């Protein structure tokens, strides 16, 4: 039976971790649980449900800063920001549906714990780049803080970066402060139809290498493009390469024209208006194309120029489907389910070029048997283990979640 501890505030979290240390029963840190299936399954039957640590308590739009309880729902934060025409510019994806959970459940702490960033990552940085400071309780049962509420800050080690993407294995976040940015006034997306993957990466690279401030560059091979709910995309009946332009209206208009002219040598172009552009990038961001099937899903980060080669090689070897974000640098892959999730083939394909492959969706048995996260060379793995021990010496937080197998 699962035991659930439900702290009401940060002091309760401190007591809960102290109890975990005293009883020797580790905890699985959750709030909404939308990413419960992301990572290696936790080896514990006790949950620490921090859902109550919710609510925005600091929002100063002209200072570009927002602070809140770590379990504040992302939708609530985004609604508050939208009212001031601001946003989280790293464009956090909602992976709930891909991970078998309902849409719209993510919390801010969950997004940070997984360092999840969307298509605008290539321009605006990752979640970790906007994470200014936090309060937390470490696996030592001690409350501590790091960072602050200002962007320019080099006071002490930047533990915000370390905590982002640590999947709750170092500390339980109780309060977080994020940098926000103005929402773009307008957006358009330039589409190029019918490109092969390698051509698409060249076209995206050409756009990225010009002075156009491209804020999204994705390529959907034909089988993926045809699955788009956006008729302007699925109606093309071909692969679709998408380049997003955002900013003040007169600038968007001028850059859309310039980018269309630039990439027209690759193939026929078409411009999506603001609404169509928005819906397309939400699909790309949330990996919607792979949400409704039972296949295993991998997320592969490589140098952008290597994306098409890696994607093509892996897709052929695994009978999988791929699409590309981050100008080719992020390859999303869906493969028919295998007991070993094809990890040797997939990781073998990036061994020489560098990068990492994460098994995002698979049955718990598979995620327990295969390293979900890219295995690290011995000195790096040993260093990571020492860092883990420094925050959580008894391994009471999310045991096994990031373990290599």
């Amino acid at each position, binding site marked *: 039976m699962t035991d659930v501890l439900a702290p009401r505030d940060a002091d309760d979290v401190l007591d*809960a971790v102290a109890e975990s240390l005293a009883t020797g029963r580790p905890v699985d840190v959750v709030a909404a649980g939308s990413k419960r299936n992301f990572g290696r399954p936790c080896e514990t039957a006790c949950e620490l449900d921090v859902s109550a640590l919710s609510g925005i308590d600091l929002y100063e739009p002209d200072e570009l800063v927002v602070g809140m309880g770590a379990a504040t729902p992302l939708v609530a934060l985004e609604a508050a920001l939208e009212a001031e025409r601001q946003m989280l510019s790293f464009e956090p994806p909602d992976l709930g549906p891909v991970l078998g959970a309902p849409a719209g459940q993510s919390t801010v702490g969950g997004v940070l714990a997984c360092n999840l960033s969307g298509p605008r990552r290539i321009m605006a940085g990752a979640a970790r780049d906007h994470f200014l400071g936090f309060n937390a309780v*470490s696996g030592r049962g*001690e409350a501590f803080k790091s960072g602050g509420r200002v962007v*320019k800050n080099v006071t*002490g080690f930047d533990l915000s970066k370390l905590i982002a993407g640590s999947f709750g294995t170092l500390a339980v976040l109780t309060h977080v402060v994020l940098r926000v940015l103005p929402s773009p006034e307008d957006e358009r997306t330039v589409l190029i139809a019918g490109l092969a993957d390698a051509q698409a990466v060249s076209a995206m*690279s050409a756009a990225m290498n010009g002075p156009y401030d491209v804020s999204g560059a994705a390529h959907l091979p034909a089988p993926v493009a045809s699955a788009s709910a956006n008729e302007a995309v699925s109606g093309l009946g071909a692969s679709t390469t998408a380049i997003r332009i955002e900013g003040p209206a007169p600038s968007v208009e001028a850059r859309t024209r310039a980018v269309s002219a630039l990439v027209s040598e690759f193939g026929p172009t078409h411009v999506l208006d603001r609404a169509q552009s928005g819906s397309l990038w939400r699909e790309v961001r949330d990996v919607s194309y792979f949400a409704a099937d039972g296949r295993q899903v991998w997320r592969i980060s490589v140098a*952008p120029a290597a994306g098409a080669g890696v994607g093509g090689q892996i897709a052929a070897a695994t009978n999988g489907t791929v699409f590309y974000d981050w100008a080719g640098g992020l390859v999303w892959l869906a493969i028919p389910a295998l007991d070993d999730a094809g990890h040797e083939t997939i990781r073998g394909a990036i061994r020489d070029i560098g990068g990492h492959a994460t098994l995002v969706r698979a049955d718990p048995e598979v995620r327990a048997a295969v390293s979900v996260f890219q295995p690290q060379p011995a*000195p790096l793995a040993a260093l990571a283990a020492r860092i883990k021990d420094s925050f959580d010496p008894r391994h009471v937080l999310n045991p096994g979640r990031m373990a290599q197998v």
Partner: protein
Amino acid sequence: MRMPKPDASVVGRRDAIVGQLREIVATEGVIVDEDEMRAYECDGLTAYRQLPFIVVLPETTEQVSRILKLCHAEGVKVVPRGAGTSLSGGALPLADAITLGLAKFNRILDVDLDNRCVVAQPGVTNLGITDAVKSQGFYYAPDPSSQIACTIGGNVAENSGGVHCLKYGLTTNNLLGLEMVLITGEVIRIGGKHLDSEGYDLLGLVTGSEGLLGVVTEVTVRILPRPEMARALLAGFPSSEAAGACVAQVIGAGIIPAGMEMMDRPAIHAAEDFVHAGYPLDADALLIVELDGPEAEVAHLVDRVTGIARESGAGELRVSADDEERERFWAGRKAAFPAVGRISPDYYCMDGTIPRRRLAEVLRRMAEMSRRHGLRVANVFHAGDGNLHPLILYDANRPGELESAETFGAEILKLCVEVGGVLTGEHGVGVEKRDLMGVMFTEDDLNHQQRVKCAFDAESLLNPGKVYPILRRCAELGRLHVRAGQVRFPDIPRF
């Protein structure tokens, strides 16, 4: 400033250690002569000086690895050093520590335009990266004012910023990968040409760690296409409140300029007397706002910012007509430090960050402190992100003035923390702000940071005496206090 006590047993073995180092690095790369070592006795924080124990200038990662392995085995401390431009004493030598200079790591290894990145050795200067890609229309965005001299490795150690980091981020936001040598001599690679990390974000952790965690031997940074154009606005305001309100309204209007700098009256006058940039001398505060991007965008935003500045009460208001005029607007700001150096025998540059809306209050209280200490202060300010650089004017030849300036500086930094800001925005803690860390952090906060140090360097051989006030032994720091008497906490809701 109290530094760790030199280890007599290490000092006594100097000749043997020099001999071992000369087996690793060619003779001229191991400097032991007092006169030659003098060049390394301080960094940009010249108030503190110490002759190094030995200076070593390796040329390869393998040599760095062997040196660190030797130091680890022999218990010898190591102070890594780039160009020595730190303003916080990060590269200050220790009497029993090897100063490990990376000046010979000065090559660009790879310019990869398809992946929009450059791979460089750590001794390449910040500007050297831009120079390597300029002809292809690219640049490296972070631009600390020492960019002609400071090295990219030093930028990683300090997480350097610059006037353009409001829009383009600090070093940490522009770094893709590192090769680094641990104190054990192990060589690790973190990141690469791809985005995000495969495990804990060590790239983010190491950036800004001030040489306490390892020695960086290779750096991969992202480069950006040069914007089509840039224009600057120069606006004089009758008060710092009015200028501050203008900054808030620009950002409130959804505009993130490439740079937004403020100067107060003493700084305006010092800069104008020095470079004749054409600054309005009747203004109490001056704003320089730079907008960059595609031509259509810049034209549009210049109009909007001009309108906002007028509404905020700007007196004199000028927009640069061409790059020459834009550079003239910047000339005074960029020369602000030497300009202040002309009106005072010495100055002490501070570096706190505050929430921008507290600016007027902070300036008012700083003026009170200035009266109390009898020392003048001039302010330049990265207004967009709240990073203050008060310059305290003093004369080191007058007994007690340096101490007064330091006390004044510490009071300013405590004030920054009190209003919700931080001790240092971009210059680093080093030795300078080390003893103020307790103003911002609790003992538990600091212990969590120092345990990270222990995970990298359990014997605390890398740059000890910097950043953290008390060096406690790692074994003691690691001790865990379990509240054994209390196993269950009945108050926590459970189900």
